[in-house]
């Protein structure tokens, strides 16, 4: 456990000093190793809660979120090798690239640390750390848009976290009534005495926590920073922001939810989450139509999925809660994939405008179809993980009698799928408006795999020349940008078709932690 914490931090330090090639290798190794370590933790966390040094604590609930972060960290670390050394090769100053590498590691470190903390105060600190690091990462591109997005992000997220800090302090106040003045806000301590906590204080705490952490999670109406930051950040950062940072904020809300549910009974906290969830779902559904920027499109899809998570928790049935946890994992894989796929498209065509991106399937033998698959997965098509998780959420909702909310969920998810799929199929299926590339440039479709491996063998400089050409040639910018997406697609498929037994155990335990059995 300690290694999981130490590894990305060490990697970040190395990246600050070492040459870029070393930074690359170190980040990829650290990503893969962190993911492997989290995997090792899973069976243990499914059995019992692991306490360490009083400040660290992993239980089934935190393991789920660590798994999502670990997976995405590994995927993004590999993807970044292609992204950062690809087309821009000579143009990007190496100082900025170095900062991005170090930042990625630090960011992943903070996001892995957040679910490992044992008390609400340290959880808040870890999440605030993720904010400041990711704000710098958003600004790293050094464009007007990035500067604007980073400023909006840091201001809104910090203000939101100010409210979350207020929530933390009121939680302490509530606990102090029972536990005395000096205790350190541990989850277990608070939960143990939850039934005796003063109601007014806990209600205030929960509402402030949902509003505060909800700002970082992207719940409507406090989501406004999200599309800006996601669209202006470098692609690997967007993937981490969307797949894991939002989930980590959701994790913080879940911790407060645990306490609130135990103290107040299920009705109040569930209603609060339901209101925010439905608002997020409906508004983002509308924004998905008529988006002009592909990364903003995906960002609004994130808002939609966060809404689904909130609604899923508000149903409260065990099936719905298990669905929510599966949804966290599947969304991390799918959204990571979608951003990485979109990143390849953007890199290939040099624009983020949906109307200018055409012929994705022709140009990209691997990323094109994979991007399409990722979007179908996001739209909860079977056989992917998100289909299973949303099915469980809806089934849980119907089972617990929340017919109206379940109906809204189904309608909104379907509508959102059309919005998302419409734009994406246009980008991928429609031919390029310009005359097609000369026949000599075109590699036969059957040679897709061959093209991929040949590019892997040649240095990145070769692909640099292709983007500047008016009509990009068929082929992937870098094999490094394909491998993690394939892994993500496989993971999605696995989650959808047959989730491993260890995960089921983990979910079952996490659901009991969330009080799913009690309802």
């Amino acid at each position, binding site marked *: 456990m300690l290694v999981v914490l130490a590894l990305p931090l060490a990697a970040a330090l190395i990246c600050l000093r070492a040459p870029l090639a070393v930074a690359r290798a170190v980040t990829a190794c650290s990503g893969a190793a962190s993911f492997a370590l989290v995997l090792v933790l899973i069976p243990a966390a499914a059995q019992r809660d692991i306490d360490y040094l009083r400040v660290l604590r992993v239980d089934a609930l935190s393991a789920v979120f660590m798994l999502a972060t670990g997976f995405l960290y590994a995927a993004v670390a590999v993807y970044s090798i292609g992204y950062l050394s690809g087309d821009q090769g000579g143009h990007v100053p190496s100082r900025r690239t170095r900062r991005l590498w170090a930042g990625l590691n630090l960011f992943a470190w903070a996001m892995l640390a957040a679910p490992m903390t044992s*008390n609400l*105060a*340290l959880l808040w*600190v870890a999440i*605030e*750390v993720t*904010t*400041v690091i990711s*704000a*710098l990462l958003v*600004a790293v591109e*050094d464009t*007007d*848009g990035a*500067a*604007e*997005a*980073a*400023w*909006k992000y*840091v*201001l809104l997220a*910090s*203000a939101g976290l*100010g*409210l979350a*800090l*207020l929530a933390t*302090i*009121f939680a*302490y*106040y509530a606990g*102090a009534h029972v536990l*005395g*003045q*000096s*205790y*350190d*806000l541990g989850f277990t301590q608070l939960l143990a005495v939850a039934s005796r906590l*003063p109601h*007014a*204080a806990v209600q*205030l705490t929960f509402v402030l926590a949902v509003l505060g952490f909800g700002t970082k999670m992207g719940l409507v109406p406090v989501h406004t920073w999200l*599309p*800006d930051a996601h*669209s*202006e950040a470098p692609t690997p950062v967007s993937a981490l922001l969307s797949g894991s940072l939002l989930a980590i904020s959701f994790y913080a809300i879940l911790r407060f939810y645990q306490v609130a549910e135990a103290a107040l009974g299920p009705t109040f906290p569930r209603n609060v989450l339901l209101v925010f969830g439905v608002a997020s779902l409906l508004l983002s559904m509308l*924004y998905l139509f008529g*988006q*002009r920027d592909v990364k*903003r499109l995906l960002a609004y899809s994130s808002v939609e999925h966060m809404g689904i998570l909130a609604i899923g928790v508000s149903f409260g049935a065990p099936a719905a809660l298990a669905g929510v946890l599966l949804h966290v994992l599947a969304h991390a894989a799918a959204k990571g994939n979608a951003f990485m796929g979109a990143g390849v498209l953007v890199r290939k065509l040099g624009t983020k405008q949906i109307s200018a991106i055409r012929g994705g399937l022709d140009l990209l033998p691997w990323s094109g179809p994979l991007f399409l698959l990722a979007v179908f997965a996001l739209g909860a098509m079977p056989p992917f993980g998100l289909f299973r998780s949303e099915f469980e959420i809806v089934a849980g909702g119907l089972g617990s009698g929340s017919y109206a909310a379940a109906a809204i969920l189904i309608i909104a998810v379907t509508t959102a799928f059309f919005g998302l799929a419409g734009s994406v199929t246009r980008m991928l299926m429609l031919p390029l408006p310009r005359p097609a590339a000369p026949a000599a440039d075109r590699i036969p479709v059957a040679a897709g795999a061959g093209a991929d491996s040949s590019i892997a063998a040649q240095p990145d400089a070769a692909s640099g020349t292709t983007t500047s050409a008016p009509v990009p040639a068929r082929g992937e910018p870098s094999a490094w940008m394909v491998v993690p997406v394939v892994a993500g697609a496989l993971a999605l498929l696995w989650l959808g078709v047959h989730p491993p037994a260890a995960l089921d155990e983990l979910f079952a335990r996490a659901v009991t932690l969330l009080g799913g059995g009690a309802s």
Partner: protein
Amino acid sequence: MSGVVAATVAAPSALSGGANVIAVGVLLAEFGMFRQALLRDQVRLYAAQSALISVLAVVVAATRHLPDLYALAALSFALKTVIVPVVLRRMLRGIGAIGGDPRWNDIAGSTALSVASAVLIAIAVAAFGFFTVAALGLTSPVLPATALSISVAVVLVSFVLMIVRRDVISQAIGFLSLENGVSLTALVVAAGLPLILEIAFLFDLLVAVVVFGLLIRVHHGRAESMSTAELTSLRG
């Protein structure tokens, strides 16, 4: 209100009176930020507000025998009254916003509303916060509940400040004073919060200030101004 105050653990009236006066002082400093026209004064006002909170922490430490709070007061004084304002001022001087070009010096015009209407809105919001929290009936063994209501009013007013001001420095100061309001709340309801956690919060604040500073530089470097009025390209 008097009912709520009376319901608290019988506190020496001098203490509760003094604490309330300090809390009101913090709120007044917050209001002062609305009409401050110069960046330098804005930063000074923030320093004064932070100093008031440190004083309150010392008062609580002395009367309630919480020795941890002395350390906290010293630390928060060093950080929020000395280090953060110095860092901010140096940075502003570095980009010529203090002592340089008067265009960047003067932020009086950055208020989206007139000062009078901004203050009126702030008063309404503060009153809302004040009475809502009082109605919740939260009491504290350390300080009178009035101080709690005032601290929540400070938090709300700092939101108004961030909203109506259209320059990056005021928005950053708005966030910092929001944090001051939260500190005040923490003093009232969570005076016993373990010192190590408080230190973590303060350290975090320092990191946030550095990041705010970096982003202000980035913004200034690109936009050649302190105003956020042009930050409108990303929407929809």
